[in-house]
């Protein structure tokens, strides 16, 4: 029953198809795709390498620029980034850059290429808190430069939302494992089951290390007060985590109500459908015209047969799982009874004991360093968009700043 959930939804390119797609690329001057990849993965260059039969060179470009290249290839909302300004759109449709990147990183994996190299140890130690995309990237970038890096992660496995959020059919854990393995092979230590602020004090880490990087993400789901302590209610990220950890072997009820309309909600409703849930109803605050979810995720969910109702806010919840909604604009009401209610209304960060404060979910400091300290921050708690590739970008930026900071001191 969970086979559909376990298998990658999107099929990869064959050698012939990837060459056909690369042949559509116009090999542009000042290529817009490369300037709009947040992580600087340089798609114009890797597509050109592929086009000129240098797949190994293409793999080098991806990997050197983006230590999570195989993950980004699968989860980047490319229509907002690299593919957005693609010149090919002037003819028909943009180049499928994500899928080309996936072909290249699959090739890298299949041929067991070892691309990344580590410089001589420079004697400096760095602690990274959190092993999501931003923590992994900053760790890898600093390890490459010769820093001794230790990541502290509160969960039993590394990866953050890569491991516990994005569902298996979009990002198999096998891929996450392989990307993390490459980073561990650079000499990065990952200490699991250790919550900084509880199990280890941030002050200790600051003393023991030359720099500490907070990359704790927004790893908790939001609750709406009316659903507090309701036994039928679960937060989306908790449900996704449990489902992915159990490889989809979870019991799905007959009739599930999901509240929320972002990508997280789309992942929940699509997962439910792939797991065989017959009735999945998603009620969304936004109207379709203002939807936050990416088009690909939305159409994917609709194709699986999810009922999506837009423009309604929950007003009350009664015992037995009955939720009342009213429309935000027109006089209309809705009443839905469900076996399970999943709340996908956003995620929040928990920075207790980490010595920083947040403002609108971001550390209230300019740049990426807490003024007057050796503490830096990256990823979802930093400034910028809340996506994996932004995590990579911010990881690269913070690594650069840490290097400058520590280099400048001595």
């Amino acid at each position, binding site marked *: 029953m969970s086979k559909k959930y376990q298998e990658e939804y999107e099929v990869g390119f*064959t*050698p*012939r198809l990837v*060459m056909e797609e690369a*042949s559509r690329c116009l*090999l542009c001057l000042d290529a817009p795709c490369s300037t709009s990849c947040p992580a600087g993965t340089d798609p114009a260059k890797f597509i*050109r*390498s592929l086009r*000129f*039969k*240098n797949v*190994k*060179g293409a793999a*080098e470009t991806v990997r*050197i620029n983006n230590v999570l290249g195989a993950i980004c290839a699968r989860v980047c909302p490319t229509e907002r980034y690299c593919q957005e300004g693609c010149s090919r759109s002037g003819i028909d449709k943009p180049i499928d850059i994500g899928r080309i990147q996936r072909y290249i990183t699959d090739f890298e994996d299949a041929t067991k290429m070892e*691309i*990344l*190299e580590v410089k001589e140890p420079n004697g400096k130690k760095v602690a990274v808190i959190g092993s999501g995309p931003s923590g992994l990237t900053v760790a890898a970038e600093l390890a490459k430069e010769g820093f001794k890096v230790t990541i502290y992660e509160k969960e039993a496995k590394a990866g953050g939302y890569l491991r516990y959020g994005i569902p298996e059919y979009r990002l198999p854990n096998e891929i996450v494992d392989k990307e993390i393995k490459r980073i561990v092979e650079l000499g990065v230590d990952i200490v699991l089951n250790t919550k900084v602020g509880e199990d280890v004090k941030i002050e200790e880490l600051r003393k023991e290390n030359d720099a500490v990087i907070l990359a704790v993400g927004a790893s908790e789901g939001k609750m709406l007060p009316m659903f507090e302590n309701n036994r039928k209610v679960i937060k989306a990220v908790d449900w996704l985590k449990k489902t992915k950890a159990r490889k989809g072997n979870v019991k799905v009820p007959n009739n599930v109500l999901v509240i929320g309309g972002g990508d997280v909600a789309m992942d929940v409703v699509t997962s439910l459908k792939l797991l065989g849930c017959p009735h999945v109803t998603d009620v969304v605050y936004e109207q379709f015209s203002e939807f936050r979810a990416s088009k690909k995720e939305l159409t994917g969910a609709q194709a699986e047969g999810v009922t999506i109702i837009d423009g309604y806010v929950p007003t009350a919840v009664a015992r037995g799982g009955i939720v009342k909604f009213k429309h935000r604009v027109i006089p209309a009401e809705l009443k839905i009874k469900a076996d399970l209610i999943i709340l996908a209304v956003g995620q929040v960060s928990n920075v207790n004991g980490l010595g920083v404060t947040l403002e609108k979910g971001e550390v209230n400091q300019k740049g990426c360093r807490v003024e007057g300290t050796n503490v830096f921050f990256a990823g979802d708690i930093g400034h910028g968009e809340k996506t994996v590739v932004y995590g990579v970008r911010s990881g690269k930026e913070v690594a650069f700043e840490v290097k400058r900071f520590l280099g400048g001191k001595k």
Partner: protein
Amino acid sequence: MVRKDLSITFMGVKFPNPFCLSSSPVGNCYDMCAKAYRSGWGGVVFKTIGPKHYLIDEVSPRFDALTKEAEPFVGFKNMEQIAEHSLEENLADLRRLKKEFPNNVLIASIMGSNEKDWEELARLVTEAGADMIELNFSCPQMTSHAMGSDVGSNPELCRKYCAAVRRSTKLPFMAKMTPNITDMCDPAIASIEGGADGIAAINTIKSIINVDLDKKVGLPIINGKSSISGYSGKAVKPVALRFIQQMKTNPKLKNVDISGIGGIETWEDAAEFILLGCKNLQVTTGIMQYGYRIVEDMKNGLEHYMEEQGVDHLEDLVGLANKNIIPAEELDRDYIVYPEINSDKCVGCGRCVISCYDGAHQAMEWNKETRRPNCNHDKCVGCLLCGLVCPVGAIKPGERVLKPGRKEKNLKKMVLQETVEKL
């Protein structure tokens, strides 16, 4: 990260890598050559410099391209002659290039109309600081019959002009051959005997690549007319490889250094020229279409290939394929390889059946119900045309059998290609 040393010595001069601009508009002036060096090219063959008395007067437009299906540039035709800039400008550019890029190789291409011209030009470019010289015996669209490919197809003129150049320079020089000839070995041997140190091949092939069906004139159209002129690009690679292989296996030429030219775009093309005996490579059409940047992937791809092959010096790959190109009468004709159809890959288009019927031996049978092919071994001759046309690579060389009445041999030990699939 792969890191291999691509340096190689050609005609006694060490190149940082074997990739050079071939003489053409891609190396027309200082700025272009400087950009090329900065992009990673090992050397530059500057656009052919002619004698002062030969006035250049070019046509417009001057190019056309041969296409096939969605491919915009299979082959390329040009009607251009030699350098448009003045002799003084060209010599000044050579001087400046050598001064500013001492570690890259600078090759001057020259073309005269008599011995005096050749001597004079060789002297001038030597004085300007070129590292080596290329004699252009091969442009097929010169407006003078004393110049260009008419010289390259006449061994005596090749010998005479090489001797003239030898008299006036100590620099190593190569003679650039025309493919508009049956046997390139004759002019190549004459050139070496005249004093050349190496051979460059090929220049462009005489061609008419398209005819405008309304105006009834070849393309490009120059005031209602067109001319036969040089063809280059990917489509000419097979012709170039053939001439190079023949020269490399000629007893009188086998130790002569050759610079390979013709349709090089990728590291794979480059590796083919190297395996057939070239120590140096030159490119024009690929650059005209895609820019100097193509050298990045040619270099990096070649480094990866060296890594896969386990060699540290490019030199070690030179000529490795020559011994495996033998006369047709010496090939093993004792066996047949039947096509093996992978029914999981097959999409049921029937192209193999069409090609086998209309272009081979009517062996590929078609099951109308399942829409799948089946090879009838009684008719199949093992030509494997089916595998070449299959759009998904579902057909590859399979079972090998001895032809009836042939001497028993171990068919498993034969070296066969694994696939006929073309991407």
